[in-house]
């Protein structure tokens, strides 16, 4: 009986040997950010110091550290506003994306026959047009609609890349749902639209969750539009607000920059991680049983 756990560990050992190094290398910059954001200036800007710990090195290591950079971030910049703005833009754009992409993805997967494939590729190609090309021609559009310096400008423009992306992904997901499910519903007397709403969408929940996560991350990452369409500090998102205000001329507020990056990263990673289990379960369970 004592050999049981040992065998289990031996079996799992290769797993840990592979996964752990990856995890360490990938997450190392974040550990680095965590340490840096609490460092005193004199500690940080001393090339002789050991960078992984707080100097002067002591037992009560927190006494060599400081929270003043984090206080600066929250009190002397508009960081809270930026976080809220980013969240608002993300949520609204994802909602808009689903409204447009769900029907389109379904139609392309099921209803369009041969030209569906071509249309699908066409939609994906739209996604390839880079924002560095479009941001200048889009500026007069945004201005004429009176949306300059407003979050609405981003809410209008972001779906231009999330919708193609989402439509394409959803098309793929809908194709993996067996036609039999819908046919069964139709036989039972449902209209196509009812079948869509009552059978197909619930079963494709993992796919929808995937699209939500990816579309949200596209919005949070976006940088160029966020910077050019919004110029007032309080209306910015984190991607444009942080580099704008924490880099002044030739002075980088490194500690605050690290804190500003770490906070949303951890929150988003926790969010994604929780969703991940759900949608993987959805793949193994659900429609295939």
């Amino acid at each position, binding site marked *: 009986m004592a050999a049981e756990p040992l065998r289990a560990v031996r079996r799992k050992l290769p797993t840990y040997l592979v996964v752990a190094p990856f995890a360490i290398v990938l997450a190392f910059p974040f550990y680095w950010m965590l340490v840096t954001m609490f460092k005193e200036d004199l500690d940080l800007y001393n090339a002789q110091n050991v960078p992984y710990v707080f100097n002067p090195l002591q037992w009560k290591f927190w006494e060599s550290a400081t929270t003043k950079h984090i206080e600066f971030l929250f009190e002397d910049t508009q960081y809270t506003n930026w976080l809220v703005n980013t969240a608002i833009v993300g949520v609204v754009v994802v909602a808009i994306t689903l409204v447009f992409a769900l029907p389109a993805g379904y139609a392309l997967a099921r*209803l369009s026959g041969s030209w569906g494939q071509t249309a699908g590729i066409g939609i994906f190609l739209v996604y390839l047009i*880079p924002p560095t090309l479009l941001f200048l021609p889009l500026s007069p559009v945004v201005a004429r609609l009176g949306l300059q310096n407003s979050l609405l400008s981003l809410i209008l423009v972001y779906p*231009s890349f999330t919708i193609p992306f989402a439509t394409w992904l959803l098309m793929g997901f809908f194709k993996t749902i067996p036609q039999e499910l819908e046919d069964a519903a139709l036989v039972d007397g449902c209209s196509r639209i009812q079948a869509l709403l009552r059978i197909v969408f619930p079963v494709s929940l993992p796919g929808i969750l995937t699209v939500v996560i990816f579309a949200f991350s596209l919005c949070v990452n976006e940088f160029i539009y966020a910077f050019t369409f919004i110029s007032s500090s309080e209306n910015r998102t984190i*991607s444009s607000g942080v580099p704008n205000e924490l880099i002044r001329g030739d002075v980088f507020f490194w500690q605050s920059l690290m804190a500003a990056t770490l906070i949303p990263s951890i929150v988003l990673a926790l969010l994604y991680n929780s969703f991940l289990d759900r949608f*993987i379960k959805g793949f193994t369970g659900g429609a295939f049983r």
Partner: protein
Amino acid sequence: MLENRRVLAPLLIAPAVIFIGLVVGVPFCWAIYLSMTDAIGGSLSGNWVGFDNFTTAWSDANFQKALRNTLIITFASQAIVLVGAAVLSHYLIRDFRGKWFLRLLIILPWAAPVALGTLGWLWIFDSLFSVINWTLGHALGVVDPSDPPQWLGRPNLALLSVIMVQAWRVLPFAVIIFLAGLASIPTEVDDASQIDGATGIKKLLYVTLPLQLPIALVALLFGIVFTAADFAVVYVLTQGGPFNSTQMLTTWSFQIGVNSGSLGAGAAISLFLFPLLAVVSIAMLFFARRAQVS
């Protein structure tokens, strides 16, 4: 009437198409028009010059380097991503103690907004305070602490740094896609391979990898698009330096179109990216469909 496929399909697709047409199509056409003029200084019109901007760009050494870099950075970083994600997902699909936490760490790079995460790397690669150099120099004694490698100052190292950061941030995304693909492999296939005696490495090579091919192609495709069309990483890390050795098409078009005021020329450079990605995408989608096991 709504039951009719022919009516329902276009009806469901129309909103998306109209939206895209207006918000992307119109500016895109305008950008194409701009690329054929000599527009400068932020104005949106200029004199017609036909394909001059394209030919000038093509014969410019900096453009050629930007094109080469786009290809190198994309394919090098995505090769790393592909191999890493394939291996990692194979082990992450299992259950083990601490999986949730390790997975959290793995997701972090992708969760960080790209501009901010790259700022973190800027500090990691700093010319004086680089933690990598400190570790290599003071801790391991592998390099001379007073003249450590300049990750952003030497052309080859700078290119390598960009590749590393791109691989770092795309890897978690690819892992997630692979996990989804692995999880969707029907259990019958699993059982069948067990019966046939294929386990461990054999299973990996002869069962899992082939089945993963379509999903791998999708992950690769997205990774390629994320990297080739990316602006933030190069812009924040090197601004295209040292002396334009890490320019990509996106950053070079920004440099020419915005910082130098040659709007038409910048638009032309940007437009080179589109057919490049289109060709790659179509090719990969074609292969993905062929590789799909129905």
